[in-house]
């Protein structure tokens, strides 16, 4: 029998129909998808012994205790440490994903370390009499900060500039407060030690003044929906009401009724002790706390953890604003640990006009690396050893270290050592020296995370004390009787809110938190739960007036500059405001409360 072409085609057709009725093609598709999960280059977690290691989170000043579950020495998940006297077992969303930070797409591991050192040395040689070498420390209060101060004392015209708030030597005792007025401070989402705030939360009545419905506003007992950028006006109005005056102008500026000012003043006075929280540059918060008697009750003096006597010959810490304009020839910036970011528009005027040398030591180019001539790559949490200054809500001094959970890549430097070397200062193991000084003071308790118990520091041998700190333990000083701190000093440049508002810049900037860890960035960007790094949000009517639509490219303009952004149109943003994620590139051109406008690109 002769097989025809038609029969072959029928056979092939039948085979095709038949094979579709079997699992084979579908299994092949799935298998191919699964196979792609194991392509070369896809990272594979290590396998090995499962252990628990302890450290302290260095992602913010809270320094929460961290328990890391490690597989073959590699951290795979982080959690809080139950029973910790300050963080109370809590860890924020960023802290939970902190071990991803070394793998951040913006991570820098190579830089111009030798060239930077040569440039610094050459510039130091030609320092004129009225010129300075300066260190800008974004997280003052660390042992490294003392090294910077000693280094600046050792060089000609050295200046140590500390970034930070007005409460450098004072702490806020939330447990004593009965009424808390927050002038736009994200108390329940990004302030102090999250676990400590939540532990004290039931004890105080929270009044949150916010232009937008922030998470703190949602969780507060009372939300004062004020006009964007009118926090200072609100504070001044309450001050007037406390003095028995009617705050007519403040009512106009904030959108809050005059009677409500009087009611607020009455509540703050009657349901005390009261506490007013404002930004680092909030003059009215300082005045209100003074007027309400918060100093010495809810705002108390906190002494510093002991330091070796030999270190005390050090340069004083100064505010950037107090440094003369055009006087810094060499500026070294330690931004390895996240801290307060001073806008470049505030830093740049302090530099000499002809060839200043600016070196930043950081892990990403997103901060001052955009402006500095040299970026020296530094380690980042959790791959470096560094101590953490006490959080703003820690009444007692603390000494605890962030100890490495992963190994730092080759080529990164330790900023403390690099700056000391540049200044010609010989330093040893400063953390060990500090720990010994703390131990010698013979006071306070040591809380060990693995054991979950506190012991008197004086009952621990000095070597064991150091070993415990290296294993993530925390030393807490004895709590002193509450003392009234000196009147809170507010940095120059304060209360500039709304001052920049003009007809040409009609929108008030409202800053929101920006996601930082890679995992959270991905989740937030895909879910639109938070503004992305280049996004701003405005009300639909403002968008219509600016001629932009949702998703459109635009330019955000302020007096300090302009930045390309993507617009999100959101009816939740109040009229007259523009919501911006607070990242260094944004902070360079605008801060909270300044005037801005959105222009179609």
């Amino acid at each position: 029998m002769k097989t025809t072409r038609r029969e072959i085609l029928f056979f092939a057709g039948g085979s095709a129909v038949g094979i579709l009725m079997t699992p084979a093609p579908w299994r092949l598709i799935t298998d191919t998808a699964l196979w792609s999960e194991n392509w070369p280059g896809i990272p594979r977690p290590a396998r090995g012994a499962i252990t628990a290691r302890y450290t302290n989170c260095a992602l913010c000043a809270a320094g929460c205790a961290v328990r890391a579950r490690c597989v073959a020495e590699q951290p795979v998940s982080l959690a809080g440490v139950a029973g910790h006297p300050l963080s109370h077992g809590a860890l924020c969303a960023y802290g939970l994903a902190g071990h991803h930070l070394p793998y951040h797409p913006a991570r820098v591991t190579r830089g111009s370390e030798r060239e930077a050192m040569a440039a610094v040395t050459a510039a130091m040689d030609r320092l004129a009499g009225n010129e300075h070498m300066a260190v800008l420390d974004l997280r003052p209060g660390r042992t490294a900060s003392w090294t910077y101060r000693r280094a600046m004392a050792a060089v000609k015209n050295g200046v140590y500039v500390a970034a930070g708030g007005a409460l450098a030597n004072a702490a806020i005792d939330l447990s004593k407060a009965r009424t808390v007025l927050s002038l736009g401070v994200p108390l329940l989402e990004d302030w102090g030690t999250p676990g400590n705030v939540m532990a004290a939360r039931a004890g105080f009545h929270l009044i949150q003044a916010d232009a937008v419905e922030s998470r703190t506003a949602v969780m507060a007992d009372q939300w004062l929906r004020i006009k964007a950028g009118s926090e200072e006006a609100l504070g001044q109005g309450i001050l007037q009401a406390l003095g028995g005056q009617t705050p007519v102008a403040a009512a106009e500026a904030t959108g809050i009724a005059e009677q409500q000012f009087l009611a607020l003043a009455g509540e703050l006075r009657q349901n005390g002790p009261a506490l007013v929280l404002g930004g680092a540059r909030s003059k009215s918060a300082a005045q209100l706390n003074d007027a309400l008697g918060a100093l010495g009750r809810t705002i108390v003096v906190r002494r510093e953890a002991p330091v070796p006597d030999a270190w005390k010959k050090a340069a004083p810490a100064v505010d950037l604003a107090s440094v003369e304009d055009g006087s810094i020839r060499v500026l070294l910036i330690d931004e390895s640990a996240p801290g307060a970011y001073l806008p470049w528009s505030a830093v740049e005027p302090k530099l000499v006009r002809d060839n200043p040398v600016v070196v930043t030591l950081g892990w990403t180019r997103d901060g001052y690396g955009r402006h500095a001539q040299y970026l020296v790559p530094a380690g980042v949490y959790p791959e470096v050893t560094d101590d953490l200054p006490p959080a703003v809500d820690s009444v007692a001094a603390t000494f605890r270290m962030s100890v490495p959970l992963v190994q730092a890549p080759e080529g990164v430097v330790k900023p403390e050592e690099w700056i000391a070397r540049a200044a010609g200062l010989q330093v040893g193991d400063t953390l060990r020296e500090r720990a010994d000084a703390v131990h010698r003071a013979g006071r306070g308790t040591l809380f060990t995370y693995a054991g979950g118990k506190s012991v008197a520091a004086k009952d621990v041998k000095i070597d064991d004390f150091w070993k415990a700190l290296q294993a993530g333990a925390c030393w807490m000083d004895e709590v002193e009787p509450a003392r009234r701190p000196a009147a809170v000093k507010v940095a120059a440049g304060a209360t500039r809110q709304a001052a920049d508002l003009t007809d040409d810049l009609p929108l008030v900037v409202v800053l929101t938190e920006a996601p930082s860890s890679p995992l959270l960035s991905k989740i937030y960007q895909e879910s639109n739960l938070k503004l992305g790094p280049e996004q701003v949000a405005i009300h639909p009517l403002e968008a219509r007036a600016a001629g932009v639509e949702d998703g459109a490219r635009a330019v955000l303009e302020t007096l300090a500059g302009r930045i390309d952004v993507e617009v999100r149109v959101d009816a939740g943003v109040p009229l007259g405001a523009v919501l911006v994620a607070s990242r260094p590139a944004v902070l360079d051109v605008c801060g909270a409360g300044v005037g801005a406008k959105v222009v179609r690109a």
Partner: protein
Amino acid sequence: MTIRGKIPFLAGTLIALGVGWVGFPYAINQRRPQPVDFSHKVHADKAGAKCEDCHAFREDGTFAGIPSLDKCSGCHAAAMGTTVAERSFIDQYVTPNREPQWEDYARQPENVFFSHSVHVKRAGMRCESCHGPTGGSDSLRPYREDRISGYSADIWKVKGTNHGMKMADCVDCHRTNQMEQSCLDCHK
């Protein structure tokens, strides 16, 4: 279609069905024997062992999985019976202190976090619910590995059960038992 056309069509269909249902499942997996002919049944019946005696939880609550040689050596430092399998196990592994390279039928992919502790201790599930009647087996079946994906064939269907160990199986079980589910439960 004529009779002459239908015959090759049906022949093609039947052959494809045979290849797809019988030949393909056989060909897609490669088989590897386990290093030791281990009898769960003997250990359960004669030694009175329970699953958790060998497949134990660590002190921190994590699941240790397949026991290491130390666990086996505790009883089998010397032969306890007369079987060839035990003699071979002692000669090849216990005496030279060499860890057997067991093939894991139920290993989840790297991108999955699975907690035995939550399922066994908290939900009170029995081992057999997922792993089938392995505890009563007299010998270890060969490990079948998918030639393309490299995963155990058990993810498609666990012997002695009507389910596999794919994500859809996990989701089905959670839905049936009205348990909460989110991506981050397993894909942390």
